[in-house]
């Protein structure tokens, strides 16, 4: 990557916000909500977990009834996919962010939770919570920007492989859980020994490899061996159902996540810009590096409230359901400072993502 920054994405804003005031205002929103977090939120996350269990078991049972009536199988696939989406997004992602650590619950906390996906929870936690959330959209520090596969801004030198990056993107979406798992293992350096000197290792490569293989293998065995075997003669029904449910989950999560960070207006930052940054500058970067999607209640739950990506990046450990009530206040603060509050319908945001992927596949 080069440090050259030819700017396509609103680089030189003439009016930078008053960072100190911005920090104060956003902190006030946070303090106000934090004081209200309590029983309601605890009951909510438990309700979602119950819903997840119900969807999961309904799905698994219906998969086996496919031989009676294929429609039951199809409903089973949808139900299981919903369970996996709930587990990964509203429960897993948010619990592992520490949003519910205050509950003191033995199972619902960021240290204990493990999700139904190929990616090992604690490895994800490290890369996602630390690198991605701290260094959001800093080119060279936040490897989530393009996942090392896609060129999404002119901060990266164009390479021939970028020509077909739309296909790479489709493949990444289809195999998203493996993409994430491999990516979070910091694949390029763990498996091929490429070193980046700006990253400190607090976990050894051996440990990372072990986690990658043990969680990945566990996931494969569970989805494609154990559950199908439990179904006995209905092995193939269950095998195919699990595969399809995983695919649906992969497509959904990938799409939502891309809408959160790679829409056309999302900005990138240089490492130099962020040295010794103040809290206000940090907030500013988080704000402009994310985008929201508008939608209804069910939609927000299924995205794990990542449809409020801006609020999530500003307040990563506030229970996500609270982003709904924070959003109007955040938006008002942005407007006051003349900052762009990047939001729009799913269609608008997603087509903007696709455009961006296509745009940067060319030099």
């Amino acid at each position, binding site marked *: 990557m080069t440090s050259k920054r030819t700017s396509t994405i609103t680089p030189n804003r003439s009016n930078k916000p008053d960072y100190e005031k911005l920090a104060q205002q956003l902190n006030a929103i946070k*303090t106000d909500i934090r004081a209200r*977090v*309590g*029983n*309601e*939120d*605890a*009951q909510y996350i*438990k*309700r979602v*977990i*119950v819903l997840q*269990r*119900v969807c999961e078991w309904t799905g698994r049972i219906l998969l086996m009834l496919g031989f009676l009536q294929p429609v039951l199988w199809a409903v089973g696939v949808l139900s299981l996919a919903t369970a996996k989406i709930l587990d990964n997004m509203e429960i897993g992602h948010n619990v592992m*962010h*520490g949003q519910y*650590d*205050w*509950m*003191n*619950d*033995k*199972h*619902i*906390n*960021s*240290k*204990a939770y*493990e*999700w*139904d996906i190929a990616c090992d929870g604690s490895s994800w*936690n*490290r890369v996602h*919570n*630390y690198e991605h*959330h*701290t260094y959001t959209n800093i080119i060279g520090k936040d490897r989530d920007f393009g996942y090392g596969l896609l060129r999404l801004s002119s901060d990266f030198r164009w390479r021939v492989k970028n020509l077909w990056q739309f296909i790479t993107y489709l493949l990444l979406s289809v195999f998203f859980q493996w993409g994430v798992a491999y990516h979070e293992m910091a694949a390029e350096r763990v498996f091929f020994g490429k070193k980046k000197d700006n990253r400190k290792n*607090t*976990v050894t490569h051996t440990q990372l490899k072990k986690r990658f293989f043990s969680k990945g293998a*566990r996931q494969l*065995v*569970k989805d494609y061996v*154990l*559950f199908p075997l439990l179904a006995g003669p209905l092995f193939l029904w269950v095998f195919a159902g699990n595969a399809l449910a995983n695919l649906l989950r992969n497509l959904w999560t990938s799409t939502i996540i891309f809408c959160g960070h790679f829409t056309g207006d999302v900005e990138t930052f240089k490492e130099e810009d962020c040295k010794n940054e103040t809290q206000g500058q*940090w907030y500013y970067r988080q704000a402009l590096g994310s985008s929201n999607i508008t939608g209804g209640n069910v939609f927000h739950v299924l995205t794990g409230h990542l449809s409020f990506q801006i609020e999530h990046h500003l307040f*990563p*450990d506030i229970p996500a359901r609270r982003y709904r009530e924070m959003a109007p206040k955040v938006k008002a603060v942005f407007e006051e400072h003349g900052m762009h509050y990047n939001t729009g319908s799913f269609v608008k945001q997603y087509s903007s993502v696709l455009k961006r992927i296509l745009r940067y596949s060319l030099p």
Partner: protein
Amino acid sequence: MKSLLSKISHSLFHHLTWKGYWEPLVQRFKPAWRDGLFRAQITSATYLNPNTLQILLSPEKKWPVHLAGQHVSLTIEINGRLTTRVFTIASGASTHALENELRLVIRIKEQGALTPHLPTLSPGQWVNISPPMGRFALREDKDMLMIAGGSGITPFIAMLEDYTSKHAAKHSSNGCKEHHSRQASMKPNIHLLYYAKQGEHLLIDELSNISSKLPNFAFRLLTKANDGDVERYLPEFYTYEWMVCGPQSLYGPISKNALANNISLESEHFTALLPTVFNSSEEEQTFLIQHDNKALHVNNQQSLLTQLQQASVPVNYGCGMGICHQCQCVKKQGIVRDMRTGELSDNAEELIQLCVSQAVTNLELQS
């Protein structure tokens, strides 16, 4: 069976325990059903005096019966947050057998995290208790001196209750008064010195009742203001074995005295009660922390993470600003200050982030 279920839940549902996977669902039908803890239902919560509450609990059948003198941890959900404190059981195993009931006698601490919420418990509500813990028990073969301070009366009440039901029951079935007293006189003596503030001695009726049934038991209600320090009463009991339950200020002189006179002493003293007024963070103080198996000193000026790193303790870390939760560890006990908000933590076990926490008391941490 249990390990098989754990294996299944681990490989099929990514959960460490089978119960953990089902917990939120089962709680819909069985409130407070929790992995690793027992359920108990509140029977009543009544005030013994303006700041002492008596709680009667009926534990689920599976609960292993306690020995008089043992304690349990009580966990209740306060505004969505599980909060746990340890209390001595103030009733005997005999009561549990008869009425399936446990009694806790609890002093309400205004600033406490749990006790101020206890009066809101309503009959029928479910809470969690741990299995009985501790080995503070009455020896029946020696003359015993019990010394209680304040709510430290609780284990002794439990012991005396069981002792009475065991021995007094025999007598009444015997029906022979003369035999009764002869047998009693052969029994070792039990003497209780009970210190409390004026007018705050608890359960006096029960103590009188017990002493009327047990000729070998006597008790004295003492206050520091009127009766002076405990040391002046100790010499008459140099031939006894001693048991103490009370605050450090009571335990300290007694343990010195016991050591000097080579007397066997069992104790259940409230360990290093928290300072009631915390010094402001400007004043530098040093605390001892236990991190896994390593002990080190830290101050209250820098974050725990900085100081652990300076001491070359291997710790995971990330952003250093309280966002990424990489440096999170389990605080087993002690109080920390959140450097972002100045908020003080609870004293019980919970997760903390080292990079934004400062020590306010001694700490025990587990990575």
